[in-house]
């Protein structure tokens, strides 16, 4: 029976899709049968981050509406045997996500996979609500800045009141905090929020700290989850986060950010 994990944040641009891809790939690398689902209907991005955008024929919405079978829409990753991607539609909007439809698809996936990772759209409207509704656990992606922290707080409130578990009065959705784009030097200068302050405000367990890294943008543009880049500190941070998600006790490391080299800085673009 698969565990359903939603990757969410409220705020846009904090790294939900990147984290979904990285965590999904990380779980698959550890031998877990994993499927990642894009809930951002109308702004289909996960397939690009995963480098499978040219293989999309049918999508999540086609399956919900009964136009295609789930098997036809699932894309098997070429690098990792255990990983599948369920892309979303670029032409439809969030209204196409029905609770019954989503439930039916998740139910079918639950028997076959160990982990189902739902990539939530930004915001707290229908798409985000549907992504979090059936979740067992939640990875709340947060940047070290005040607006992102407040939006995460809002999302945590929604998880504890608007999820299926909350409505049924079951054990609440288990939240994890994933701090991304963290830069200790800027924290020291007081330009970014400290880990302790964020933990104090959100009061949920820390899953990992991903340092600011050009490897993330590079990975996105190449269509490779950053977890596969074992040399980057961001990749290492995601590997650690995946281990913690699987229940292992690992000390949280604050890895230094990777700076752009002098040459790249002169060229004015990231590596």
């Amino acid at each position, binding site marked *: 029976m698969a565990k359903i994990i939603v990757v969410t944040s409220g705020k846009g641009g904090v790294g939900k899709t990147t984290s979904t891809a990285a965590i999904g790939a990380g779980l698959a690398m550890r031998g877990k049968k994993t499927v990642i689902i894009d809930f951002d209907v109308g702004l289909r991005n996960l397939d690009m981050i995963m480098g499978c955008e040219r293989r999309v024929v049918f999508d999540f919405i086609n399956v919900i509406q009964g136009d295609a079978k789930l098997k036809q829409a699932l894309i098997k990753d070429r690098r990792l045997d255990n990983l599948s991607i369920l892309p979303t539609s670029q032409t439809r909007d969030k209204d196409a996500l029905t609770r019954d439809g989503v439930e039916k698809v998740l139910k079918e996936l639950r028997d076959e996979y160990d982990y189902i990772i739902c990539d939530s759209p930004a915001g707290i409207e229908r798409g985000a609500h549907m992504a979090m509704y059936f979740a067992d656990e939640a990875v709340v992606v947060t940047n070290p800045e005040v607006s992102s922290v*407040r939006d995460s*707080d809002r999302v945590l*409130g929604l998880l504890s009141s608007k999820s299926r578990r909350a409505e049924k009065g079951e054990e609440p959705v288990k939240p994890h905090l994933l701090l991304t784009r963290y830069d200790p030097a800027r924290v020291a200068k007081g330009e970014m929020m400290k880990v302790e302050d964020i933990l104090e405000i959100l009061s949920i367990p820390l899953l990992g700290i991903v340092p600011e890294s050009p490897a993330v943008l590079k990975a996105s543009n190449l269509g490779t989850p950053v977890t596969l880049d074992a040399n980057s500190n961001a990749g290492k941070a995601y590997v650690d986060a995946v281990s913690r998600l699987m229940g292992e006790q690992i000390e949280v490391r604050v890895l230094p950010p990777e700076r752009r080299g002098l040459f790249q800085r002169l060229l004015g673009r990231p590596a």
Partner: protein
Amino acid sequence: MPFQIRGRSFTAVVLQMTGAADAEFYQTLDAKLSQAPHFFTNAPFVIDLDRAVGLNRSGDFTGLVRELRARKLSVIGVQNGTIEQNAGALTAGLITLQGGRDLPPDGAKARSGDESSGEEAEDRPRERPIDRNDRVAAATEAAEPAEIAAGGTVLITEPVRSGQRIFADRGDLVVVASVGSGAELVAHGNVHIYGSMRGRALAGVNGDTSARIFCQSLEAELIAIAGLYKTSDDIGPAAWKQRVQAFLDQDALCVEPLK
């Protein structure tokens, strides 16, 4: 300043319409009104359109308002209408309200008690506040495990997250966890927060000037007692992150450290 602007909550009477405003509707309404001729005098009326099919054209609303006002019912707005219905209501001079919540049954009982004593309902609308319409979305999310103890005290043990709103509609509100920025605590009585307080706290919302707010660590966006408020800028650095109480002293909101 020649005026003061304050927030105040009122109770409105909701008329849930289930069909068009036809002869049958007015007949039944008249029969109901004849049972208690003065009961609704001066009470603000809101028409709930959730199930009112067949009431669409702006003419419908103009006629409806005229008929209801002729019966001394003070219609002020509509809610749960479609876009067309809201537009029609606007033409008839009605505002569109959102949210609100029904009074608890004991409130209804107290109300019918008033009725039998034949009192004029002069200040009835002030008896019990309902949610102000700008706070609605959050109100529906305030499904935190709230325990209502005897005497109407509401106890919250989980963190109150941004966007959540907890309303103690009968007594004190006690929170033994942190309150996030953008969260709102509202109580008829006192508000106690034994955690970091980063949101808003409104005590004595029914006009109780003796209500107080107690904080373990005051980092609030806003505190208010009986409608008088201070924002974090007004509170000043001396009380920031301190254990404090806030109370009213002759129309001034004072924030003092707890010794």
